[in-house]
């Protein structure tokens, strides 16, 4: 019953949206692939949280609705789907091949989580040096960054809402830093800022801008609100940890 042409197009759009790609990119990719596969009267409307697809295949109208619940940031996947769609449009691969390629892409095993802990830790460490830290700050930011990413992975797996996660992680980062600094003397400012830098919603902000410019007002506003909520939650988490220090520890 499943029509390979339509499956392949919807899978491409789904992959882009799940990897936090722009909405217009998902729509354009689906439109171009559908045209290349010979579907007619193609219509697609996409949001950050799902899309509706409709096209005429073999004289019959086919509709698909897809809900996207979990989004993560995977720039390489967006890039790869882009490359596959370009190949499909130029006629190098047909619907079956592109379906297989996107499926293989989606099932490709991810790098082990601890590698991401390492990336996060190094990013946090270097950010703290950038904000005026030195060796002690680097080491502390490295360790705290490792812990923060190690907590983030299970939180994402347990499907804790993505708007609550920044609060927990921001609190954790600032709290650990405050605790560590009761034993050591280092620049608190550069450590906490370094650790929370990778948590700032740069992607959501950039995509909000890019979606709004393309006229996707709903997606633009949704992503803008998403970015704003993340920043507020993150700041609130940091503020709570700093307030705890202010009220209990007399330094």
């Amino acid at each position, binding site marked *: 019953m499943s029509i390979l042409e339509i499956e392949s197009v919807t899978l491409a759009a789904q992959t882009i949206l799940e990897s936090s790609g722009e909405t217009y990119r998902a729509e354009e990719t689906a439109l171009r692939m559908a045209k290349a596969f010979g579907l007619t009267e193609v219509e697609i409307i996409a949001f950050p949280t799902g899309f509706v697809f409709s096209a005429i295949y073999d004289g019959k109208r086919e509709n698909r609705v897809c809900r996207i619940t979990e989004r993560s940031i*995977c720039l*390489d996947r967006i890039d790869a789907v882009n490359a596959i769609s370009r190949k499909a449009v130029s006629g190098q691969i047909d619907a079956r091949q592109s379906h297989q390629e996107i499926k293989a892409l989606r099932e490709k095993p991810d790098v082990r989580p601890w590698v991401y802990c390492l990336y996060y830790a190094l990013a946090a460490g270097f950010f703290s040096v950038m904000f005026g830290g030195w060796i002690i700050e680097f080491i502390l930011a490295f360790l705290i960054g490792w812990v923060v990413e190690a907590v983030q992975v299970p939180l994402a797996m347990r499907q804790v809402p993505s708007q609550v996660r920044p609060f927990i992680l921001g609190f954790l980062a600032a709290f650990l830093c405050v605790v560590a600094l009761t034993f050591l003397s280092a620049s608190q400012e550069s450590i906490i800022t370094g650790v929370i830098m990778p948590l700032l919603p740069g*992607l959501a902000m950039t995509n*909000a801008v890019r979606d709004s410019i393309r006229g996707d007002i709903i997606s633009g506003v949704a992503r803008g609100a998403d970015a704003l909520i993340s920043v507020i939650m993150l700041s609130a988490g940091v503020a709570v940890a700093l307030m705890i220090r202010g009220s209990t520890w007399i330094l």
Partner: protein
Amino acid sequence: MDIVIRAISVMAATCYFGLLLHQPKSTLVFTALIGWLGYEIYLLAGSGLLAFFVSGLFVGLLCEIVARKVRRTTTLFLISSIIPTVPGLGLYRTMMAISENKLDMALKIGLDTIGGIGALALALTLTTLVFSIIRPLKRTSNHKETK
């Protein structure tokens, strides 16, 4: 010496941030360089609201140009290049002032931070807008060639 340490730390931080977002490895060199240049321009321009705007314009333009040169999508470059300029320090200082109950300070720094984010977003909007006007023309001309 100071500038060397800063350059290394900004570039390394941008690189690892890019890796965290699953950025393709071949684009990391560009984003690290653009990120560092953007941060230097931000510092040179005086770290005020205008500095955010100028640095955002510069990063946005460079990313669009590089993306066209290597034929990848702009988003791949933009996100990690802009991150060193994002006002994380202002955010922290605002929270610090709130936790110390210095509300007038918190308001001042907070407004500066929000203004900085707004200036960055405006700069990115402008560069994307300029290039999205150029892009369709280019695309249709490519299309005719292939046909």
